[in-house]
């Protein structure tokens, strides 16, 4: 493949930031020490490649302009193999501006007049919690009529907005690849989508009310999709019923250790779907009568529940707490509580609107509904901090609609997601082995 391939659209937008070059703060000498080129120019090639594989995606994409060889590494299978082996996991976040989804139910024909909804250029805002930096990602290849639903293993899942059988698209925004899943079998309205991607398998679960009849009580069912490198696949073959009297309210599902979890409302509980066993079960939520805005997040391989606690009758101060689900799968233990002073500040900003949380690895992001303010919590270092507002929305060209509410996904940027090639085989009616 041509090392210098200008025809491949690069994912990130370039903004002229004149003052970026004047970023010479005191941290510069620490982060930019003088290095002796007589020593470092002797680094063996393979070791250099390893260092490049270590770079987080923004640095990687910039390093590509060093020379043609570095530019071409993204297409080199030996480099990508090394990358897949050693690249550290980056627990980042991807935010999107909230689209009023409900308007899509009542739109019965092709959108003719709507200008804001006919988005061909979906934009995401990438947030790096390690260095507190924002980037802007364009999703040029995603067709209109889709919304972001979930993310795992470097892939972002988009779901069709229209009521009916749902089409899902998996996209790796860094390389611009798109793969479509076969549509779900049952027509649905606003399902909850769960996605988990590993280097060798893809699992998707779609749960929520299906449109069996406009007059019938909501029939809550699930369909799941599985494909793996071992050759096993199930194209929406596994279906399961949710426990009675569930109200999923189209949230997203969080994957932890072989199960998808989502919040069940009124009264609060947690629904868990065991993928292998294809069945659902309920877990009681901690302090369920006193929770407000509960959300589920994955943290370092465990399931956590984040919610505000308000016990107006008892003398318990309002707080925001984090519980972890224990190994037994039924009991919760409180892990963390937001410092009281910070919570008072938080409650003031939030003003009772509620909040949503997303998280993975060591980070949890708490997004306040109706605003673009968000709080970042580092579980390992026990550090809470307000996330600086996204500069692309504050003063940039994207802030033309006025609504600044952001919805987030826990996203891990990955340069390569070879597992997506498994989906290519599904488009063939009869699998051929021409190689």
């Amino acid at each position, binding site marked *: 493949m041509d090392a210098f391939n200008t025809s491949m659209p690069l994912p990130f937008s370039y903004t002229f930031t004149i003052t970026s070059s004047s970023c010479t703060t005191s941290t510069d000498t620490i982060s930019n020490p003088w*290095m002796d080129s007589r020593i470092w120019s*002797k*680094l063996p090639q393979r070791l250099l490649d390893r260092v490049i594989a270590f770079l987080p995606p923004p*640095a990687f994409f910039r390093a590509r302009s060093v020379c043609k060889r570095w530019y071409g590494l993204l297409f080199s299978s030996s480099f990508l193999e090394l990358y897949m082996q050693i690249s550290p996991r980056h627990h980042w976040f991807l935010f999107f501006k909230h689209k009023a989804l409900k308007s899509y139910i009542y739109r019965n024909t092709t959108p003719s007049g709507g200008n804001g909804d006919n988005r061909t250029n979906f934009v995401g805002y990438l947030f790096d919690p390690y260095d507190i*930096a*924002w*980037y802007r990602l364009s999703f040029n290849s995603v067709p209109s009529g889709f919304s972001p639903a979930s993310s795992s293993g470097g892939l972002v899942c988009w779901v069709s907005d229209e009521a009916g059988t749902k089409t899902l698209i998996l996209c790796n925004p860094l390389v611009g690849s798109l793969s479509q899943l076969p549509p779900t079998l049952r027509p649905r309205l606003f399902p909850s989508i769960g996605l988990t991607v590993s280097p060798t398998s893809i699992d998707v679960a779609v749960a929520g009310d299906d449109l069996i009849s406009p007059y019938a009580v909501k029939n809550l069912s699930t369909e799941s999709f599985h494909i793996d490198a071992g050759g096993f696949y199930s194209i929406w073959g596994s279906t399961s019923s949710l426990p009675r009297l569930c109200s999923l309210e189209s949230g997203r599902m969080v994957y932890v250790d072989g199960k998808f979890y989502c919040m069940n409302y009124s009264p609060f509980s947690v629904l868990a779907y065991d993928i292998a066993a294809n069945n659902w079960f309920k877990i009681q939520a901690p302090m369920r009568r006193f929770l407000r805005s509960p959300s589920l997040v994955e943290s370092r391989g465990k399931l956590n529940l984040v919610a505000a606690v308000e016990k107006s009758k008892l003398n318990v101060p309002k707080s925001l707490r984090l519980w972890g689900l224990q190994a037994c799968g039924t009991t919760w233990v409180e892990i963390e509580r937001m410092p009281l002073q910070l919570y008072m500040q938080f409650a003031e900003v939030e003003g009772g609107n509620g909040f949503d949380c997303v998280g993975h690895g060591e980070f949890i992001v708490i997004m306040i509904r109706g605003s673009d303010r968000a709080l970042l919590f580092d579980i390992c270092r026990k550090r809470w901090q307000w996330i600086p507002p996204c500069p692309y929305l504050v003063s940039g060209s994207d802030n033309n609609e006025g609504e600044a509410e952001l919805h987030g996904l826990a996203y891990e940027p990955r340069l390569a997601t070879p597992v997506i090639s498994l989906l290519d085989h599904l488009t063939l009616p009869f699998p051929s082995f021409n190689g």
Partner: protein
Amino acid sequence: MAFTWSKTIYMGLDPIFLTELSISIIIFSTIASSKKSRVSKIKTADNEIFEVEEAVATMSNTIKIMAGDCSGGVIPLNNVHSTIFARVIEWCKKHVDDGEDLEYYKGALKNCDATFFEVDQAVLYHLLTTANSLDIKPLLHQGCQRFVDMINGKTVEEIRQLLHIKNDFTNEEEDETRKKLWSSVVGMNSFILL
């Protein structure tokens, strides 16, 4: 209770069998304990010999393979100097029980291993290349992270100068690339700047 149990056993067993059994136990435990403290002998390029516990030495896949070939003899490392090797072994001793999870080592770099890499650039270079040639993945992982932290903040041109890489883009191609790649935002920590 234990006393009664042993009394019962003793009373039920043939004394000769018991003696044989205890001798076997002594022999097995000697083998087991000697296996634990089996020592590898490694000779560095400057002819210095290191005696290192096998478990520590075999954190290096290269040494592991060579030990299989040498079977008990002295393992020669022809391109590792004793000062560097001493440091590497020191690191290995600290991490012998830490397992394979590379993510763990990233965290450890920030905590207990932070000072390990605060060394001269020449020493750091040798630590990196030695970890590479000895194939000690966790050490290499940390070393690379340290190196990335050091070059973080360097412009593309600075990187080229540091690594003696020739810029083989034409002016046109370079502008094209520059237009498409992304930059960091005002006031935020930067990665490699354009």
